[in-house]
């Protein structure tokens, strides 16, 4: 039934990739993701993992080689962060457009300038529209478990899409946590070998990635859109299957604190756990506080989110990314679109916090709650904790 060990979360993700029997790892090192692929290169070198490790010269090449390997029918893994993800940008669209399953860990990190190796969601929020399934882990066990699930989701015949598992850089990637590592036999039973639908094969030649003239491009994008939307029930099904097999349950959207509370925090990623502590303390103080944690980001789980927020009058939406010049942060923007025109829609308060590794503490969440209650958090959004001569 697996063994419980103290393990750096990056190494736990590497364990998951090894347990998934990947065929190809194509990667370029970048902080805070490096420990994952470094560990995988050790597994390959020692023979512990029978895979090709392609040490490329850039992330653009990492994603390009991953695409080629996926087209050849391999089970493919890579990992990156921040500038590395940005350098992959143009290839990311090609991978999803060509419907190539693969799994990538993004150890979320702020983008330069100024140079920051620390955590925020600026890297992945710049890649919202790439047509990949995108999910966020909150802790080390979840990072391992979602990585295993990601292969099964991506390769499902009803899906056939690439998938990103987001783990917060350093906050998760470099922290040693107690993690249960499943047995190989258990994983093999859960995750059968990949059976590609189309692959590069000289006996059955196909052309991948042709020109899409104006007479076909719109239909091609419709096919991708339908695949991404259609992935939601499969994600749900695979997570449920994982729960049944490994006794760890994950939902697309999670609730915490008082169910039906009037004021809910909305979080995504590891800040959710800090917020949970704040919500627990607020409830102990008799406050009407709850929390909704978004796990699946693309496709956005609309019905599940609405159900989790039923009865709420205020949502305090935490965005860990700034969209300069936008109406609000990316998560709040998504939620305002979702609630627009719905009767009884809650007020959406948007707090941009935790940029470039800035800590957001339990006490600060409680301050946000107090300010939201007194109506002092207004406007389109508020950048939390900005030092200014004006304040």
């Amino acid at each position: 039934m697996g063994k419980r060990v103290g393990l750096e979360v990056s190494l736990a993700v590497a364990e998951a990739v090894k347990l998934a029997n990947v065929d190809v790892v194509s990667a370029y090192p970048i902080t805070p993701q490096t420990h994952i692929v470094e560990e995988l290169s050790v597994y390959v070198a020692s023979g512990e993992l029978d895979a090709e490790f392609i040490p490329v010269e850039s992330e653009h090449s990492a994603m390009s080689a991953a695409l080629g390997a996926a087209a050849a029918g391999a089970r493919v893994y890579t990992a990156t962060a921040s500038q590395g993800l940005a350098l992959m940008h143009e290839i990311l669209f090609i991978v999803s457009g060509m419907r190539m399953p693969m799994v990538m860990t993004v150890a979320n990190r702020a983008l330069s300038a100024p140079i920051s190796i620390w955590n925020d969601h600026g890297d992945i929020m710049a890649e919202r529209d790439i047509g990949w399934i995108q999910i966020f882990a909150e802790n080390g066990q979840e990072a391992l478990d979602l990585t295993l699930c990601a292969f099964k989701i991506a390769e499902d015949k009803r899906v056939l899409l690439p998938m990103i598992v987001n783990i917060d850089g350093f906050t998760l990637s470099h922290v040693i946590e107690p993690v249960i590592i499943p047995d190989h036999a258990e994983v093999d039973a859960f995750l059968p070998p990949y059976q590609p639908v189309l692959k590069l094969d000289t006996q059955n030649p196909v052309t991948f990635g042709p020109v899409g003239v104006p007479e076909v491009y719109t239909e091609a994008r419709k096919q991708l859109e339908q695949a991404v939307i259609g992935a939601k029930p499969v994600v749900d099904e695979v997570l449920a299957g994982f729960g049944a097999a490994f006794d760890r349950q994950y939902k697309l959207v999670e609730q915490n604190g008082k169910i039906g509370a009037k004021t809910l925090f909305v979080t995504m990623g590891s800040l959710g756990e800090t917020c949970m502590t704040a919500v627990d303390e607020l409830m102990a103080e008799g406050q009407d506080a709850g929390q909704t944690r978004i796990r699946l980001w693309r496709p956005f789980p609309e019905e599940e989110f609405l159900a989790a927020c039923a009865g709420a009058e205020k949502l305090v939406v935490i965005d860990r990314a700034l969209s300069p010049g936008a109406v609000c942060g990316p998560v709040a923007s998504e939620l305002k679109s979702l609630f627009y025109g719905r009767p009884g829609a809650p007020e959406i308060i948007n707090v941009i916090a935790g940029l470039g590794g800035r800590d957001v503490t339990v006490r600060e969440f409680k301050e946000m709650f107090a300010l939201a209650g007194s109506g002092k958090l207004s406007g389109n959004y508020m950048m939390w904790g900005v030092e200014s001569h004006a304040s």
Partner: protein
Amino acid sequence: MSKQAIMAWEDLALGTAILSPGNAKELRTGDWRSLKPKLDEEKCIKCSLCAMYCPEFCISVDAEGFYRPDFYYCKGCGVCANECPKDAITMGKEGE
């Protein structure tokens, strides 16, 4: 159905892959043509440079040894006329 679309999205192959290799030969690029190459057989030395330079690979040798374009594919780009060392090919307006 949009008059601009050639097929429904449901009928596209996975990832818009092309499952019938070589079907580019069905694409009639000849209807792009506004200029048409004309060969002066007196000047032509049958060197085949026009065929080698043709970006459509649509020039082939006939029974008399002259190099002739296939007008189903010839776009009228004029590369052959430009490269001919004997100025044996001239570009005239299509339809004249």
